[in-house]
Structures are given as C-alpha cells and as structure tokens.
C-alpha cells in the first residue's frame, strides 16, 4: 500500500512537470483556441484583422487577442507563467526576453523555422538575429521595428524663422550643443515673449520650451538621450547583444549627460520635476514644447492632434559625423507551457509573414519587420500625408544601434532610473553615474 502511494505521488509529479512541456498529443496541439497578448492598443485593430484572416485560412484555430497596458503587462505575464495562465503567444520585448529564455519560459522555434522555410533574410537587417538567445536558440520571429526622430511644431518653427531644411541638417556635440542647441534656444519663449537666446530671457518663467522632456531615460535613454550620446562613439555595453559590462562611467557619456541636464538648467527644457504626470506628447499638443524627440511608434499620436501642424526631422548629426538612433524591435514569442504548441507556431509564423505584416503596414501604425512590408508602411504613411523618412533613413543609412540586450535588465533599469533622474533633475552631476555603474556591473559578477 505504502509503495503504491509513493508510486502515485511520483507519477503525479512527473505528470505535473511534463504537462508544462508537452502535455497533449500533437493533433490536439494543432487546433482549438490560442491566446495572444499585446500591449499597444493602437495596433490592436491591425492584429485583430490578422487573426480573422488567419482563422479563415486555418478554420481549426481561433485566436483570442488580449490587449494589456505596458504598465501591467510584464508582471501579469510573470504571474501567468507561474499560475499557468500565460498566453500561448505574446508580444515580446528585447529588454525582457533574455531573462525569460534563461528561466525556460520561452519555446525555442528553430526546428519549425527550418522546417517551414521561414526566410530570415527578408526582414530588415539584424532584426531576426536579435531573437537568438545566448544559448544559440531562436525565441521569436520579428514583427516590427522603431527608430527615433524629432517631432516639431511647424507653426512655432515658422514663428521663430527656422526653416524645415534647417531642421534636417542639425548638428550636435556635447561641448556647446551645436546647431541643435541654437535651434532649441531660439524656439524657447518666456512669458514676456523673449526667446531663449535673447538678452533678458527669464529662464524661470518659460512659456514654451524648445525641447520637451519625457523623463530621465533610465538605463536605455531610448527616446531621451541615446540619439545624442551614441553619436560620440559611446555605447551602452561592451557587447550587444549579451554584453556583460555597462559603460555609464565613460567620461564621454557623462559629458553628454551634463549637457543634457544643462538644457533644463538653462530653461530650454522643462525641469524633470514638472514632467511627472501629463505625457510629453500631450504637453507638446498643448503648445508647451516646440520639439519632442520620440519614437516612430508615436507617429500616429503626434500627427493625430487637431489644430497643430507637425513635421518630423531626423535626429542631429553628432561629433563623429553621423546620426544615431536606437533600433528596437518586437517579436512574437511562444510560452514554453503552451498546450497548443503547433497552433501557436503556425500563428507566430503567420504574424511574421507578409500576409499579416502587410495588413499592419496598411494601418500605418508601426513599421513591420519585413523589408517589403516596411516600404508599404512608408507608403501608407505618405498617403496619410506624413513624411516618415526621418525614421526610415536611419535604417537605410545604417545609423542605428541596438537596444542594449543583457541579462538583469530589470535590475539595471531599477538602479539607473534613480541615478539618471538625479542627474537630469540637476540634483547630482553626471560623474555620480560612475557609482551607479559599479552597482550595475556588480550584477554581472
């Protein structure tokens, strides 16, 4: 009796541990309803269309899409992994997938990609390789990409006598800020109507800031400062992807950050403390800033505001003679605990195919990962009257650098968020980042 009880317990334990990996037979795994999560509400209509088309082509499989806001997305997902309620397929981020792969939460899809002959060279350069983990296995197929550009208020530019061509040829350096700082200063207006570069400018009573501020930028500075810091030859980590040492202690980087924080000190950019709350794009729409550096995923929002003419310029050319933009991309990944493995793979491959990415392109919300679909998206934007070359140029000219992909990204972000806020708010000099950098690099020992 005792023995059989033990055997039952062992069998149950084995069954439990197996159910997470394989579970059902292949026939069942290829049909039924699969769940799919994404965080951007703007993209939901396009992907719902993809799901409907997918079911039409594969009547055995239906896709249930759930959109969850970015703020709760990752903690809800982690709870799902533990509680067994995670979606079969979900939109994944470069900053997160390393840790998920390391904890065996993602399904490697190399075999399927090979068997189904997915053409990895059809994606924009480098995008497909980003989703190969440190173990050499593939954990996702790319779905889109984004770069950074300068959104500007055309009316304010005209009022300041700055031409749109001038905006296309901005230069920047960490010593005097180049023509970028000159334009920002000239676009800044105080409550008495004095411009930022005029004598008598009151930096404590600014009406319109030349440059908007999104926040301190934490570890990546994706839209805040990386489009500047990375033109100096500096990069976030020793290697990318899978670096093991961060470089926030580099004097070159710290010089750039001192310049950036100085903009707020000079009154050309809002103080960090005043930006807690209303979103940067909304304050731009309210006429509080003339230029906002932001990502291509924001095109729809910026060009959608009523009563405000918006143009988009490329980010400035840096001291080494080139522009720079972070190149970030999302992918769709499969949860290792899925019971619908085959259906999930089919859906991921469909999401990564021209059939779905062309649908996304025609919605003109983001740039799809496939080169051909990217071009279609640019055309769709053009048809809406939006010139997006500021974003596509970075990819064409290869002036992009990757979002820093490492382990411990959540902890790095936790440390750097505080340190960067202190610097950008002027509470600490950029040299204080050396200490934060030591803390960060200690995580990799």
């Amino acid at each position: 009796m005792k023995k059989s009880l033990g055997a039952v317990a062992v069998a149950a334990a084995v069954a439990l541990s197996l159910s997470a990996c394989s579970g059902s037979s292949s026939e069942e795994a290829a049909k039924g309803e699969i769940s799919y999560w994404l965080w951007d509400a703007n993209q939901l209509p396009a992907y719902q269309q993809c799901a409907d088309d997918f079911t039409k082509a594969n009547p055995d499989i239906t896709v249930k899409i759930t959109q969850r806001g970015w703020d709760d997305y990752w903690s809800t997902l982690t709870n799902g992994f533990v509680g067994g309620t995670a979606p079969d397929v979900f939109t994944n981020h470069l900053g997160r997938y390393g840790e998920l792969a390391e904890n065996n939460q993602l399904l490697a899809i190399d075999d399927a990609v090979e068997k189904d002959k997915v053409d990895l060279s059809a994606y924009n350069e480098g995008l497909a390789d980003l989703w190969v983990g440190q173990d050499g296995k593939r954990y996702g197929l790319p779905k889109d990409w984004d770069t950074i550009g300068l959104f500007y208020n055309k009316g304010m530019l005209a009022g300041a006598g700055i031409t749109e061509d001038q905006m296309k040829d901005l230069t920047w350096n960490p010593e005097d800020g180049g023509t970028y700082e000159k334009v920002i200063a000239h676009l800044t207006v105080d409550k008495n109507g004095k411009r930022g570069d005029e004598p008598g400018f009151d930096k404590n009573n600014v009406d319109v800031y030349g440059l908007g501020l999104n926040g301190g930028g934490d570890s990546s500075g994706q839209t805040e400062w990386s489009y500047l810091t990375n033109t100096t030859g500096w990069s976030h980590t020793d290697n990318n992807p899978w670096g093991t040492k961060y470089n926030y202690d580099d004097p070159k980087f710290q010089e750039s950050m001192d310049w950036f924080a100085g903009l707020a000190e000079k009154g050309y950019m809002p103080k960090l403390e005043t930006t807690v709350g209303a979103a940067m794009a909304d304050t731009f729409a309210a006429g509080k800033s003339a230029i906002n550096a932001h990502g291509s995923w924001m095109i729809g929002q910026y060009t959608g505001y009523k009563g405000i003419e918006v143009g988009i310029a490329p980010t400035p050319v840096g001291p080494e003679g080139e522009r720079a933009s972070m190149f970030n991309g999302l992918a769709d990944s499969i949860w290792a605990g899925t019971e619908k493995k085959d259906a999930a793979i089919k859906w991921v491959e469909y999401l990564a195919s021209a059939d779905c990415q062309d649908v996304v392109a025609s919605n003109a919300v983001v740039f799809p990962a496939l080169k051909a679909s990217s071009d279609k998206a640019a055309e769709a934007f053009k048809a809406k009257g939006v010139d997006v070359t500021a974003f596509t140029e970075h990819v064409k000219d290869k002036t992009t650098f990757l979002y820093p992909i490492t382990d411990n990204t959540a902890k790095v972000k936790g440390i750097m968020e505080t340190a960067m806020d202190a610097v950008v708010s002027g509470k600490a000099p950029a040299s204080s980042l050396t200490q934060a950098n030591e803390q960060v690099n200690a995580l990799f020992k």
Partner: protein
Amino acid sequence: MTTLAKHPGSAPPAAASPKPQGSYRRFGDLRIALLFIAPALIGFVFFYVVPTIRGIYLSFTEYNILGDPEWIGLDNYTAIAKDPLFWNSLAVTGQYVFLNILLQTALALGLALLMHQVAKSTIIRGALLLPYLMSNVIAALLWFWMLDYQIGVVNQFIEWSGLPRIAFFGSEEWAIPTQALINTWRHMGYTALLIFAGLQAIPGHVYEVAKLDGASAFQTFRKITIPLLRPVLVLVLVVTVIGSFQVFDTVAVTTAGGPVNATRVIQYYIYQRAFTESDFGYGSAIAVILFLILALVAFIQMKFLKGNESDLD
C-alpha cells in the same frame, strides 16, 4: 486598509452550555461552533498564516519565482542591512507616517467633535465618509490630475492667485507631503467616525457634573473628553499607524517611487524588488522586517498608551 481591521472580531466559540448534558451534546456544540468559525478560520489560515510562513521561508532563499527557491541563509538580511535604498525607504516611510497620522488624527478628532456637537444630520455625517468609499487608485489618480504641474486645476488656481506653480508630485520636497495629504483626505472621515463612536460612549452625566463645577469648554475637552476617549484613540492610532506604514497604492499609481527615491516607501520597495526585478527572496526579507517593525510599534502603542484599560471603570 489594514490587515488588522479585516480580521473578523474574535468570534466567540458558541457560548458553552451552562448545564452540560453529556458528551454528545457538548460534541454537538463544538461541531456547530466549528461550522461557524470555519469560514473565518479557513480564510485566516490560507490567506494569512500560510503566506506568512511561506514568506518567512522565502526570505532565506534566492527566488525569482520562475525557478526553484535556493536556500541562502541570512544573505538577504545582511544585504538589506547594507542597502541604502532600504534605509531610505524606512526614512521616507517614517516621514509619511508622521505627517499622515498627525494630520489625520487631528483632523479626525476635530471632525468627530463637530459631528458630535454640531452636525447632527445623518447626511452630513455620511458625506464625511464618501472619500473613504472611493477606491484608493481612483482617489490617487484624481488628485494626480488635479495637482498636475502643467495641466492640473489646482496649479491653474495657484498661478491665478499670483503664486508660483508647485510640482506636487515631481519635487522631492513636496512628494511625500502630497502623498500624506491625499491619504489624510481619504481616511479622515473613517477615522472621525471611529472617534465619534467613542465620543458617544462617554456618559452625558460626566459633562453635566463638569458644567455644574464651572469647567470651561477647553477644560472639559482636555480633562474629560480626551482621557475618556483614550481607549478608542489608542485603537484608532494602532490601526491607522499600521495602515499608514503600508502605504502603497497611491505611490504606485502616481510617482512610482520617484522623484529619484523621494517616495520609494517600504511597501513600494518590496513590490519593486519582488515583482519588477523578480527578486522574491529579497522582497520577502524586507517584508519580514516590516512585519517585525509593525508588531513592535503596535506592542509599544498598546503598552504605553494603556489601550486595554478605560478610565470609565
């Protein structure tokens, strides 16, 4: 609000029958008693006792929730002792509790006296409770918008009256007072209600005697009302202090610990370490420390304020 407040009062085991009628009857009583105790007991065991014990266990492990916990002894605790962010969170929480409790108790006492002596209308008394009925998150978000630096109505008003705008949530000086004021606003009605109940329990004849002796209103308040209110005030203080130490939701939906570390209160830091940075062992260890601090604070309050004795007896 607090874990204490949620405990259903110590459900008395069905009164023992005065005349024992054999073991069967007593057994029957026990069964019925257990039946009535069961819901509270099961909830208490599964949602308090088990998680507490598990939390204590996890505090000695390295655990990222996706893998298995790995026993590391006291490593988390020694790391916490050297963690400046932990000490910062204690300091910040201390400031918050001090401001919140001081304002909340003073205002609630004032409101309770007004309810007792002036505002006899049930509608007005009920209205005082309205902020407390609102979800914490909704209340926090409403204030977040109203106090926004750029577009908040409060700052529009401040500017209109000729004063400089205030970064209520964004400046390190204002962030904690702002959080404390929001929660004072939300909780003072409820606290006032508790004190009001205590006021009503003070027999009227005590006041009549005081009046005959020619005591002034202030003397009556100081010499009669406050001493006789003491048991209720102690209860209110214990419950509100514990609740105040656990401030989380308003911080989470507004400043998320910032600016820099100005509002990284202890509960938020626990959440950050555990749920954002997947360091559940470390988070549990801080939670255990918070548990010990709260137990100590409650013990000191009960002991020195003599909350279990009344001067009425």
